[in-house]
């Protein structure tokens, strides 16, 4: 039927654009990971034989994973409130969630430093009311990185969740409670599974964007909070080491792809049971 044709026409512009202006130049660049200095896998051997690359890859996954979980924990109630509140509250929430984008990365990080550092706003308050005797270490460590990243990445969790939650028919949950389920049970067995597409999309977006972050971790993190994008940037910027940088990018790409295949497979198995 014409349905198939229609799909092709709907896909064509996006696919052509990405293939021509992204896939073609980027794959030309990435092939250098196997073609230079000589043909072979030497760049991949370097990555997997040196502790720094594996260590930084692990760091990256750990930071991105923690950011994703925090975004989900904060984003879920916020999205729920956006759906179930007055238009005015919804507007305030949407506005607040989008705020970080209006300030440049430098200003944003600087503002966080002012708030979090030893003589910063939070520590001043805590010391002032005598809640702590010593200033807390809120920044220049993993905590600082997470505070900064969650604030920027939250919209990518909230909006997919919001758009899915807004479509969920409240009568399902009512039906469950009427049939004797406790509200908590109804939430976990009925509401949460219905939100799942939004939650999964949000988590995917947050995780992937977090993988590529490096300016925020570099400014708010401690010495151990190095992320892979920073290493790739450094290899290119200072040394022009395209082959190794490309190999790192490919490892990142394949790793992310593999992770999502695993999650997908896992969900399919679980999905059968729900």
């Amino acid at each position, binding site marked *: 039927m014409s349905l198939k044709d229609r799909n092709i026409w709907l896909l064509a512009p996006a696919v052509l654009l990405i293939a021509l202006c992204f896939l073609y130049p980027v794959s030309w660049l990435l092939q250098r990971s196997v073609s230079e200095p000589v043909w072979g896998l030497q760049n991949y051997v370097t990555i997997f034989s*040196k*502790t*720094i690359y594996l*260590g*930084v890859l692990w*760091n990256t996954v750990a930071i991105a994973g923690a950011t994703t979980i925090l975004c989900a924990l904060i984003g879920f109630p916020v999205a729920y409130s956006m759906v179930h509140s007055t238009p005015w509250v919804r507007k305030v929430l949407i506005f607040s969630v989008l705020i970080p984008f209006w300030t440049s990365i*430098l200003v944003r*990080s*600087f503002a966080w*430093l*002012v708030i979090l*550092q*030893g*003589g910063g706003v939070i520590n001043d308050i805590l010391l002032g009311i005598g809640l702590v005797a010593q200033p807390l270490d809120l920044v*220049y460590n993993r905590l600082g990185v997470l505070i900064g990243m969650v604030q920027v990445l939250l919209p990518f969790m909230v909006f997919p969740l919001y758009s899915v939650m807004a479509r969920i028919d409240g009568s399902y949950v009512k039906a469950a409670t009427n049939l004797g389920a406790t509200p908590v049970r109804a939430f976990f067995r009925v509401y949460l599974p219905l939100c799942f597409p939004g939650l999964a999309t949000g988590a995917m977006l947050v995780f992937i964007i977090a993988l590529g972050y490096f300016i925020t971790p*570099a*400014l708010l993190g*401690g*010495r*151990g909070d*190095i992320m892979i994008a920073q*290493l790739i*940037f*450094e290899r*290119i*910027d*200072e*040394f*022009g*080491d395209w082959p190794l940088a490309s190999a790192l990018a490919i490892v990142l790409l394949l790793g992310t792809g593999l992770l999502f295949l695993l999650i997908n497979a896992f969900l399919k198995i679980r999905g059968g049971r729900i």
Partner: protein
Amino acid sequence: MGDTRKPTGISRRKLLATSLYASASVAALGIAGRPASASVDLEGREMVFASWGGSYQAAQETAYCIPFMDATGAFVIQDGPMNGSKLRTMVESGEPVWDVVDVTDTFLAANEALFEDLDFNIVDASPLDQTYVHKKGIGCIIWSYNVAFNTDVVGSNTPANWADVFDVEKFPGKRALRDRVYPMLEIALMADGVAKDDLYPLDVDRGFAKLDTIKEHAIWYTSNSAAQQLFVDGEVGLGVLLNGRTFDVHKKGAPVNLSWDQNIRSIDYLVIPQGAPNADVAQHFMNATIDAANQALMANLLAYAPCNPAAFGMIEPDVLPWLATTEANADKGVLINAEYWRENLAALTERWTEWKLS
């Protein structure tokens, strides 16, 4: 096109160079400085100048580009901000957009193949201190890593040298240190007692061992703006900071000062990317950056040091103490060895990252 003009250009410039030294008056120098490049007529030509943006590039525009345009009739387009990856990509593609770029000494040393040789038939580097002349670049500013401190935090007990920065008993609390293997290895070795003139080749293991002692007492910064902030807010009492950055907040009233002991000097070079479309104009442009009056103007604007000794006579007295190349300050410090870093930067950067992770 320049072939017929070159000889006259040079002889006139040499003539003027001598007259520059002979004259003592700033005003006279200012006037005499102009016709030097005016011997070249570049009317209708353009070139693209790329640097680090902000007030720094604005000062370079005032000090180098405008005098060059006035003298030759060429037009200089301001571009940037300079970015190593973009520069590299454009040169590797064979057709750079930029004709003159501001790069650091370590970048130039590690990437010499990216740049054109200077044509010393056009470029007259003779007025310069030859330490700051590279076959591919003219030193435009000299800056230094210094022991810096917040006077509100450290009080009268001011740190004098790197040993003080590493002394966690004398100066408890956090210190701000650069998150980069250079100049941190040099700093660690000097803190450990290595004389400034015996630094190279660096004793890497000894340096890292010394760094271990301070690992948990430091905030490692990647951005100079962030570092400025650490000092201004008193988050750290002491540490390492660029002299220009220290001067910037000091003159604006922040309680931040520096010590010149064991300062580590670095050079920013102006270079011509390989294959630059207006390389011939760029070669002539170099003379405008060598000019003593222009270098003095740059120093007066931002306190970055000149490498043309004749410029010192035209620099305001309150700026002089902040410059890395005055005899007094230069004697106390050491020039970073870009040749050493060309050979070792890649391997040591890897080791630095590994060290940070451990």
